[in-house]
């Protein structure tokens, strides 16, 4: 009856098969057939694109063609920042290519401390803990904090890493309808007295690019005695006066108990983190298994991240330009007649809703032939079974590039028949 059950159920065969061979892959037959049917139309595989050369944060060579990148999470364009690159090269020379160990054993180098210091300053919080990926940050913090008898109340459109954190832990998991404050309140109200409560929200929901009403939701969560975790993966560096995210923008960051974030978006490398003012926070380093039982990030990664985070503290001009890009593209696509995921530009993500997977894939391919890369997103990643062309803007996209992109959407949309 649950999402989890639904995705993992070939019809149970109760007949006695004795020692007969059962192919464990038969559960994927539906997906294999859907994929075969799509590719048999001769369309380029949208999930197998190779970037042969990366020219800049906004341009790569794909299939030999120069392509504008509008489907990366490189929101602040830090991947080719000269200071960031230099920090990584120096760290490779001074600390080697990898740590070959866990953070709690031989895997904490000066750079890991340096990037945690940078995060504490960036968020103005007491504690910062760096994981090897953002996925592991959610997996580890959620599954470790909420235990047996506790309740996790979360938005139904939460990222897979949040769901997997719930599934890995022993808490009771209670989802509510996306961004629905009343639905959240009702569930919190019904939780038995005395139970621990964790509310999990995201600042920006990455599929449609919409933001959460965190101010109202956090007030409700606090009124019910819940602790609050907010994933700000898609807002860091960009949203809020200091780029701390949607909670900062709405003036409620001091009410958030745990902020989860990532280095693989605005920071421009890879890694994940949690920052907090909780006085007992540091104990997580000993009890959080996705932190303990994996190798720490390579020195070059933590040094590039630390340098990038410190530069993001002073990136007001880039933030302003990125907002301008988001507004221009949103207005341009609306004017062309495309159906978008949000009525107003709320983040650096603008999602174009496609009528179905087949035409979504055709539109994706037509854009690629124009020289534009966007993300094709489809269920189960997307809400309500939608097929989306997800555009994410970069502070390094020039105003001219944004106009070029709008022209590409117009030609491709007319060719495929998405717009008139």
């Amino acid at each position, binding site marked *: 009856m*649950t*999402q989890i059950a639904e995705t993992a*159920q070939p019809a149970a065969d109760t007949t006695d098969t004795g020692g007969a061979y059962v192919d464990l892959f038969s559960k994927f037959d539906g997906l294999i057939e859907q994929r075969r049917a799509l590719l048999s139309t001769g369309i380029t595989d949208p999930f197998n694109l190779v970037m042969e050369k990366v020219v800049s944060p906004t341009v790569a060579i794909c299939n030999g063609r120069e392509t504008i990148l509008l489907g990366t999470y490189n929101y602040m364009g830090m991947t080719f920042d000269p200071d960031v690159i230099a920090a990584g090269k120096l760290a490779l020379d001074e600390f080697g290519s990898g740590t070959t160990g866990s953070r709690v054993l031989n895997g904490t180098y000066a750079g890991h401390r340096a990037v945690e210091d940078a995060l504490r300053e960036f968020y103005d919080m007491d504690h910062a803990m760096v994981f090897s990926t953002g996925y592991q940050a959610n997996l580890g913090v959620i599954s470790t904090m909420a235990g047996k008898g506790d*309740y996790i109340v979360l938005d139904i459109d939460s990222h897979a890493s949040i769901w997997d954190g719930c599934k890995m832990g022993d808490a*009771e998991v209670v989802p509510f*309808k996306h961004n629905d404050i009343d639905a959240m309140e*009702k569930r919190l109200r019904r939780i038995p007295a005395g139970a621990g409560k964790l509310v999990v929200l995201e600042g920006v929901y990455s599929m449609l690019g919409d933001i959460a009403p965190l101010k109202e939701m956090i007030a409700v969560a606090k009124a019910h005695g819940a602790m609050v975790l907010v994933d700000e993966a898609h807002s860091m560096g960009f949203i809020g006066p200091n780029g701390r995210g949607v909670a900062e923008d709405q003036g409620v960051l001091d009410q958030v108990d745990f902020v989860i974030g990532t280095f693989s978006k605005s920071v421009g490398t890879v890694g994940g983190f949690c920052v907090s003012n909780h006085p007992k926070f540091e104990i997580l380093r000993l009890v959080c298994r996705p932190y303990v039982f994996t190798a720490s990030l390579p020195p070059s990664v933590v040094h590039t991240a630390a340098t990038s985070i410190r530069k993001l503290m002073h990136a007001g001009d880039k933030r302003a330009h990125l907002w301008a890009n988001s507004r221009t593209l949103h207005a341009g696509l609306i004017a062309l007649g495309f159906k978008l995921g949000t009525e107003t530009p709320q983040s650096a993500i603008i999602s174009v809703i496609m009528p179905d997977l087949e035409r979504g894939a055709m539109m994706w391919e037509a854009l690629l032939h124009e020289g534009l890369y966007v993300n094709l997103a489809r269920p189960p990643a997307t809400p309500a079974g939608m097929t989306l062309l997800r555009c994410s803007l970069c502070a390094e996209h020039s105003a001219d590039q944004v106009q070029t992109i709008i022209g590409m959407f117009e030609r491709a949309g007319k060719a495929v028949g998405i717009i008139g």
Partner: protein
Amino acid sequence: MDRAETAGRIAALLEPFNKKGIALTDNTTFAGDLEWDSLTVMDFVAAIEDEFDIIISMNQQAEIETYGQLIDAVIKLKG
């Protein structure tokens, strides 16, 4: 709680989600017979929770595959 009365209230809530008009028995399954996807499940569970003022966590939902099991779960959760 009276089982027949509870079943009646659940059946009334289920009706708008029963698009194919499947006849309900205690053995009717949500995923198989009613062919519900995860969004339908969420909306239906919310309706049940509001009607009976209970929480059915996803952990509990995983144990509920049939209409009959749902009726019994609701009665148990109401206490």
